[in-house]
């Protein structure tokens, strides 16, 4: 069972894009737009080895955050949130391990099956790693207004 507020779970279930923030080698934040996947307990993102600097940063520092802020990408949900958590890169076999989260990915981006059928054209794009995030603290803006003070909750 998730401790995340329902409003945040709804955002995770519907969002087509989120901003993953990692801490880079300079100790600065670095954000990357990705599709967030949610299984009711952990947040999953996948990254191709083509765009793997974020994976290198996570391996060096697993403290991350992920924000969902775009009402256009959340089917008009007004709320916005940011979730801090601890990330783990899962890449036992970059060729196949990421397929574990394919059902969650497919639900948000049905076209992924078409792209997988063209895997021969983008072989490196489909060498991927899973970023698994365990949430620890969430900040949210119920009405989506960033000028208001957000609500906060932390994992027990």
């Amino acid at each position: 069972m998730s401790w995340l507020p329902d409003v945040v779970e709804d955002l995770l279930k519907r969002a087509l894009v989120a901003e993953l923030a990692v801490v880079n080698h300079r100790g600065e934040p670095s954000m990357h737009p990705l599709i967030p996947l949610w299984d009711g307990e952990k947040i999953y993102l996948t990254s191709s080895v083509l765009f793997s600097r974020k994976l290198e940063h996570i391996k060096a520092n697993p403290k991350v955050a992920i924000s969902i802020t775009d009402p256009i990408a959340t089917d008009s949900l007004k709320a916005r949130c940011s979730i801090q958590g601890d990330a783990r890169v899962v890449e036992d076999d970059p060729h196949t391990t990421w397929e574990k989260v394919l059902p969650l990915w497919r639900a948000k981006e049905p076209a992924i099956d078409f792209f997988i059928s063209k895997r021969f054209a983008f072989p490196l794009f489909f060498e991927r790693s899973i970023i698994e995030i365990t949430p620890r603290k969430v900040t949210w803006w119920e009405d989506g207004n960033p000028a208001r003070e957000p609500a906060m909750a932390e994992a027990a």
Partner: protein
Amino acid sequence: MERRKMLQRLSTYAHVVVSWVDDDGYPAQTPADFMVEGEELRIHQTGLAIPTDRTLNIIASHIRPQPGYGYDQRRYISIWGRGEAVEDGMRIAIERHWGWDEDITPFPEYVERSNPQAHRYLAELSAQRGVGIKPRLSPIWTFLLATRLPFLTATIIPILLGIAVAGHAGEFNLWLAFVTVLAGASIHIGLNVANDVFDALSGADEANYRPTQYSGGSRVIQRGIVPLARMIAISTAGYIVGGALGVYLVLETGSAELLAIGVLGVLLSVFYTAPPLRLVHRGLGELTTAIGFGPMMVLGAYVVQTGELAWEPFVASIPVAILIALVLYVNEIPDRPSDASVGKRTLPVRLSRETVIAGFLVASIAAFATVAVGVIAGLLPAGTLISLAALPLAFQVHAGIRKHYESPYELMAVMGRNVQLHMATGTLLFVGYLLAIVL
């Protein structure tokens, strides 16, 4: 992208997300409204206080949901800098920025430009685990891609045409016809792979960030699917098998002309990209291709069947020679920047846009005119006039080149239609000869 232009683009986004590293060492984030004035970025007051004593990352991200598909119109701008408190918010002193817009850098190009990062990451992973971790494709796809097998139509069509011309002259040996196709296909595989090897060594394919399925090589070396050494082995094997079958055909026919055609064909295919001649680098690639996949293939196949040279197969080969050269010519259009950067002076590199487009039209009409003149002169059977049915394809390709000259990915469909032009014309010439044999 220069800062002013970046900020102009940023002003089209609805909001930004601001991130900083909090006192617990985690990235903190808040959505924010913002304003761009000239070269200044201001973040409006947020409910979550944004610190001014550390580096901020500010990102604006855009997608357009497409229900039942996913989304498109992906673009984002990422900015690093520090904030200075001002009335109603903060002003950002921008240090650096970065971004991607799929309308400016199409996704396939973005992927190609990121190849080095992928290789570096996989190399580090391999070093950590003590085993090589490489990108993979199925053996069938790897073979199809590495050899560019579908392009073998360029060999099969002229060989079948040469066999048909010989059949029209009353000569046909099925076994020798089969061996001829096999020999031609083997040499063609050797050539395709050698082309990739030499383009990898010269850096031409590496420099090409906009490859398509028709241009820029097979990419198996650049993507780490097949190592260079294995490509050299495949190419060598293709030439050895093709050469051995060629020797067999020469011995069977006892034809010195066939030996000359075979040797010249292999030399042309090797020195197409290989130093010291590197014919394609000198603007002779189109001519080499025309000779190799036109008269040499048609005459070679004809000589295997008849044991002698003749004018008829030479005339019949001219349309397919011109059209296969035009396949290369059009495929070279999107490769212009990368070819020019490594000194590969192809015709589209040397000539102006208008000359290239006009050149296509003149050459393709000349191909069909050859058939008409050949029939009128009594050198080709009347049935070959059926090939004129493919002429509308030439006009479609011409219009497509004019429309998409500067757009590699839009040009892909035109390149495909151009391949069809060669295949359709060659096949119809073959059918024309079959009609002449049967009727």
